[in-house]
């Protein structure tokens, strides 16, 4: 197992270097100049020249990349060229917020998606199955931002049940924090839960068709026992794969959801940074996102081994 993990980590290194080069190159190709965006309305030529020199933006792109790489290897991701705040500080501020949103969204998605998927597979072709499918389709097709705005209007403006937006840290006020995150987490969870339900259903269906299930039923085992104990465990492997990918996507930033609910998370950070051409922030955030994607997938690989004893032997 350790060898597998070590292997994965080694593979991750070239991936990260490639990611960093791509993001560096891509954002340099964007039209628009960070210095002009920074210099404000007045566009004072002196200020523009000074800023350009300060952030080495007057040097060739490869030289800028090498400079950034050198700092990065020392753990210095640079500072936001807009606010002077170190990128590591920004990430430390925003990552927990998005992590909380992602985890809550994921819990809701699993809570809705898994049971619905299992139930609809076990009741294939019946009313329950159709009902669950309709629900899943709506979950997938309703746009995030629209659902968010509707929820704000109904739940906050009309009923005054939950705060309409913003963020409260759990350390400040735990229940308030859960309450403010509930709507955004639901918006995220609805879309993910729908995808999860579809994947669970198809994974369950393919397992339910196999011979050993028929054997188990023939032995006279209860239907519930067969579905949960025999079929569900085997169906879990593709589901874990999907979950890991979905969770990675969540970390990359639930951009629209964060925008609608004004949550100061990763998604908002990167969107603002792109609009302001705040290169250092974009690079730092993308790098951290890539690392977390890799870590989550590594975690999924470990889960496979725990779920499937055959992998342990090989």
């Amino acid at each position, binding site marked *: 197992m350790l060898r597998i993990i070590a292997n994965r980590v080694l593979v991750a290194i070239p991936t990260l270097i490639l990611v960093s080069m791509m993001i560096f190159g891509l954002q340099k190709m964007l*039209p*628009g100049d960070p210095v*002009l965006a920074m210099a404000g309305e007045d*566009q004072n030529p002196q200020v523009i020249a000074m800023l350009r020199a300060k952030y080495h933006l007057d040097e060739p792109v490869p030289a800028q990349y090498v400079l950034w790489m050198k700092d990065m290897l020392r753990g210095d991701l640079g500072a936001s060229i807009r606010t002077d705040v170190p990128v590591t500080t920004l990430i430390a501020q925003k990552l927990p917020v998005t992590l909380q949103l992602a985890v809550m969204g994921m819990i809701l998605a699993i809570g809705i998606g898994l049971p619905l998927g299992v139930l609809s597979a076990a009741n294939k072709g019946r009313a329950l199955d159709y009902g669950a499918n309709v629900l899943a389709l709506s979950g997938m097709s309703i746009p995030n931002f629209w659902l968010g705005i509707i929820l704000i209007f109904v739940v906050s403006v009309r009923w005054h049940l939950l705060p309409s937006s913003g963020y409260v840290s759990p350390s400040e006020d735990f229940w308030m924090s859960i309450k403010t995150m509930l709507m955004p987490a639901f918006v995220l969870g609805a879309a993910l839960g729908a995808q999860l339900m579809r994947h669970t259903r198809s994974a369950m269906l393919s397992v339910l068709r196999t011979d050993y299930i028929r054997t188990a039923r023939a032995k006279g085992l209860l239907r519930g026992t067969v579905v949960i104990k025999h079929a569900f465990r085997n169906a879990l492997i593709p589901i874990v794969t999907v979950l890991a990918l979905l969770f990675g996507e969540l970390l990359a930033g639930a951009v629209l959801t964060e925008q609608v609910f004004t949550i*100061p998370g990763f998604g908002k950070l990167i969107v603002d940074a792109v609009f*302001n051409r705040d290169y250092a922030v974009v690079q730092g955030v993308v790098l951290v996102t890539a690392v977390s994607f890799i870590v989550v997938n590594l975690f999924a690989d470990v889960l496979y081994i725990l779920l499937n004893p055959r992998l342990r032997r090989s």
Partner: protein
Amino acid sequence: MRNILVAGVLAAGAMSAGSAMAQSTIRIGLQDDIGTLDPARSSQVVDRMVLNSLCNSLVDISPDLKIVPMLATSWSTSADGKTLTMKLRHGVKFQNDEPFNAAAVKANIDRSRTLPASNRKSELASVDHVDVVDEYTVNFVLKTPDSALLATLTDRAGMMLAPRTLADDAGVATHPVCSGPYKFVQRVQNDRVVLEKFAGYWDADKYSIQKVIYQPVPDATVRLANVRAGSLDMLERLAPSDVNTAKNDRNLNFVSIPGLGFYDLTFNISNGARAPKALKDKRVREAFELSIDRDAINQVIGAGIFAPANQPLTASSPYYDKSIKTTKRDIPKAKALLKAAGYDKVDVELTFGNNTVSNQMAQMLQAMLSEAGINLKLRPTDYAAALNAAHKGDFELLYLGWSGRIDPDGNLHQFVSCKGNLNYGLYCNPEVDRLLDDARVKSTVEQRKPLYDAASKILADEDPIVYLYVQPWPYVLSKKVQGFTPYPDGLIRLRGMSIKG
């Protein structure tokens, strides 16, 4: 039993204390996250919204754009216009207990003039040096007379930071210490800025609000939903599409005031290879002017808050030229002008920073201009890219906004003088330059107004820029918020404001 009673009384006491606390906090929704809180480096309007409560300027404006005392109680300009003398307010303290005096003014102005990243350099370019005359008198010694200086000192260039904090640039940006009515508590980027009342403020009894929380909520509709839901007490810059919702809500007050700035179409007259030949002809530019129906824009896109503009100065300015009338739409005349210039139809590309309003505007302009035979091709980009295109001359027609300045110089000189910083279309008329340069060194309204009027008339004739509408400042406030007075500069002044119930 007694214990229960005591507990009950204590609980009730705690609750009433809690609600008293809640009453004296105001939560204000801003359109953008602030950039920096260093007045010398700030470049955004929202920075000023926060800075206004945090820092005092040397002078301030009244709602009718007169310069009024703030940290300076009186001032005078020497006969040659090259010395501005200010008498300073006694007994003012910074939030770290340092005294405010002439030396503090010198230190601040020197920093704003010399800090490499200062965005105030051009505003203070006329200042040669600052002399400390005595503890409470300071002289601004100028290289050339500068009548815009006083107006400049109402804003960030005139904001005073505690001298001991000036050496630490990062500290100023992240935790500014000023002499304003509220002191800095906390900032979480993209989330909030928290200020609390500074007990030692010289005018403290005029401020009943104890705590201010500024929250950036970029989506205008969500910002309004937050005020309606009670999560915010007021917001700035309501979207025109939400004006009716806000007006019809019995729990809300809607207030709008025309600002100092404008939105315009800038023609690329001679900036690089992309400047179209047709646009060099003023008859073609006038045809644009004649094809646009500003009232329709105001009704359709502006919901009545986009007051039509016909010159770069706002109607509340003493320099506003009343003799210039807003052009009425006249398609036959526009067509005739195009024909006289030798064109049946003109193809022009419009570059604009894409957002909901600018997108609607571009489409409406496209429809209106097409009737005169002007075919507008739309090129939406994000704001940073539009700015880049403007500098490089990579545009034919540009839709841009300007937040406006109190002194007319700020709305004119840099846009239309031959070497102006923001003269993206490179319009150049030596006579306009002469008038505007001359107006800079004259000191009274009576001396300056004829010069601005003359320049405005040339500009109205030559149309290097088509002014579309005056940038408005629409606010929505919960009915609980009282005593709010809107100012043309858009800043929220908390003096006299209170929260009821």
